[in-house]
């Protein structure tokens, strides 16, 4: 792929704007709270778009296009089953506890509901996860730039890290969030023309129906058994593993996304943030999955659309989007497309770094190292943590370069940590007898159960560290099954230990447990301000698409 001056001009313009936003916001940052929490003063439309944009990182944009080619329309389950329902649940049921408790982070909520050890365990695992994730984003960006543009690996890493550092260091969380909104529009407007051109080339819907295997153009067909659909998973694993455990574990407990809602003006805005974000999320498959399906049709109709092989000699599905950009975009709009890819990497990285500095400053430094320091002090700590977070991300990127399997490991760490965490939250928020000891040991057992399941099973040649007792049809199926097993173990252990240990007094749980918290009254609000009505509308739209593409 060869870029022209105009393409470099667009990339340069984008870099100028993201750093410019950081400079503009610099003078508004005076305290640690401004830097790490945006003083809970961000408008609804911005928090909503930042909410989905924080998840619109490299793994999402490249990975979902890859899955679109690999699994076809079944990939949309990651959105309609694996995101929307959880986002609605977060807005309707969980956000009142997060926002109402005045906790500054998810680990801090765990401290209020349970105790310090549960908070510290979650803060440490989350901090490690965000650094890994940020570093992998950086590594993937550098590899992509090296492969498709011939840029030097080191230059790509230091340039991207330097720009993310500049705008997050200057403007903190607000700068990251504002840039996420710009990045959202850039990703959508930068990739949408690709979908239009692709549709035009293959001959529209008729061309897709004629050239793509019918088995890849459904959502639910063949889901009765793992061997009868391209995804290699069955309906139970999909609904319980992805739709319930993994989706709710990520969208309802991962501080990276929850933080975007927690910085809203007020509780009503905080509740509506994930619900309004669900609307673009419902339509996102059009931008990130459809290109993969279009590639399948283009491969049948034209030559030159074959995917390259990776180092293991297997088809490299991650190259779906770069291949389409190089084949369908002329110079000019190609610069916009490449900038959109860079934006997705930087968005993912900045989101992780800002979540990392908040959790480190409030949940590790302020709790265990220096309590009761001045706001100015925590501002400096937050800024220093940002620099350290970026440096650790760079280090992780270089480590990832030497280990091919580190990306798979990252996905596993996500399912190890997030799946049991949702069981802890679920019991903690909806069962007042859940005890601090139950939560801690349940969380630990769930994480251990996930690791053990992975060690005793294989899929696509991965796993089975101890023995191979079961082989899954696909890595996706393995991840879904690990998730629900970890959830169930955590749930059961937490419940059993809670029966034999002492719960916190009820007066300490008001605002933290559903049955002990006064209900929100939204009856007098107009429908578009009422989170429940909005959630019902989103639910109906999701249901409609599930029926349409059955």
């Amino acid at each position, binding site marked *: 792929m060869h870029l022209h001056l*105009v393409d470099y001009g667009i990339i340069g313009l984008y870099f100028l704007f993201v750093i410019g936003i950081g400079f*503009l916001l610099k003078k508004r940052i005076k305290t640690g709270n401004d830097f790490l929490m945006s003083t809970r003063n961000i408008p609804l439309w911005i928090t909503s778009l930042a909410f989905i944009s924080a998840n619109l990182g490299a793994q999402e944009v490249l990975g979902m296009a890859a899955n679109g080619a690999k699994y076809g329309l079944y990939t949309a389950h990651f959105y309609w089953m694996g995101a929307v329902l959880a986002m609605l649940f977060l807005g309707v049921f969980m956000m009142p506890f997060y926002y109402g408790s005045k906790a500054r982070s998810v680990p801090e909520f765990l401290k209020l509901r349970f105790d310090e050890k549960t908070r510290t365990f979650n803060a440490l695992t989350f901090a490690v996860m965000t650094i890994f994730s940020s570093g992998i984003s950086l590594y993937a960006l550098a590899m992509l730039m090296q492969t498709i543009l011939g840029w030097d690996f080191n230059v790509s890493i230091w340039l991207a890290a330097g720009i993310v550092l500049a705008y997050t260091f200057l403007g903190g969380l*607000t700068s990251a969030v504002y840039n996420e909104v710009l990045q959202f*529009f850039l990703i959508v*407007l930068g990739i949408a023309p690709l979908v239009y051109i692709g549709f035009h080339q293959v001959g529209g819907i008729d061309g897709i129906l004629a050239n793509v295997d019918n088995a890849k153009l459904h959502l639910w067909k063949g889901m009765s058994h793992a061997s009868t659909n391209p995804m290699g998973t069955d309906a139970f694993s999909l609904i319980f593993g992805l739709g319930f455990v993994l989706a709710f574990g990520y969208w309802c407990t991962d501080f990276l996304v929850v933080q975007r809602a927690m910085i809203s003006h007020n509780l009503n805005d905080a509740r509506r943030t994930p619900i309004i974000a669900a609307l673009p999320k419902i339509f996102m498959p059009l931008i990130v999955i459809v290109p993969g399906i279009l590639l399948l049709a283009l491969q049948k109709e034209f030559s030159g659309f074959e995917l390259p092989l990776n180092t293991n000699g297997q088809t490299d599905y991650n190259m779906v989007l770069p291949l389409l950009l190089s084949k369908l975009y*002329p*110079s*000019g709009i190609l610069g916009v497309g490449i900038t959109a890819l860079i934006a997705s990497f930087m968005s993912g990285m900045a989101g992780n770094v800002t979540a990392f500095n908040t959790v480190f400053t409030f949940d590790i430094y302020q709790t265990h190292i220096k309590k009761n320091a001045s706001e100015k002090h925590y501002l400096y700590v937050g800024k220093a943590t940002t620099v350290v977070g970026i440096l650790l991300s760079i280090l992780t990127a270089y480590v990832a370069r030497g280990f091919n399997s580190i990306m798979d490991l990252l996905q596993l760490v996500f399912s190890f940590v997030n799946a049991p965490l949702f069981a802890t939250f679920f019991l903690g928020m909806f069962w007042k007898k859940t005890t601090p000891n139950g939560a801690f040991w349940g969380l630990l057992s769930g994480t251990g159960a996930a690791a053990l399941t992975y060690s005793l099973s294989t899929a696509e040649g991965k796993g089975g560290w101890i023995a191979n007792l079961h082989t899954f049809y696909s890595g996706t199926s393995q991840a879904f099954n690990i998730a629900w097993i970890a959830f169930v173990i955590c749930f059961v252990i937490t419940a059993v230990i809670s029966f034999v240990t002492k719960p916190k007094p009820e007066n300490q749980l008001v605002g933290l447990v559903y049955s002990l918290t006064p209900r929100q009254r939204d009856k007098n609000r107009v429908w578009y301000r009422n989170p429940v009505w909005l959630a019902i509308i989103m639910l109906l739209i999701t249901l409609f698409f599930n029926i349409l593409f059955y």
Partner: protein
Amino acid sequence: MMNKFFDLRFVIGIFFLAVGILLLLYSFTNPTVMHAAVNRWCGIVFMVFALIMIALAFGKNQADKL
């Protein structure tokens, strides 16, 4: 006018206006009709989007400033 740079809608509008103008101008230098049309239409769509964002920034709701 400088104050408008604290409104994210204005910043996004300016960015896409600049990119739209670049694409539109570049389309006149494209050697093939197909490439020129892609850049021209994308440039126009970006500019329309940019103008909508800028218009919103100048609207009544000033609560969305940075």
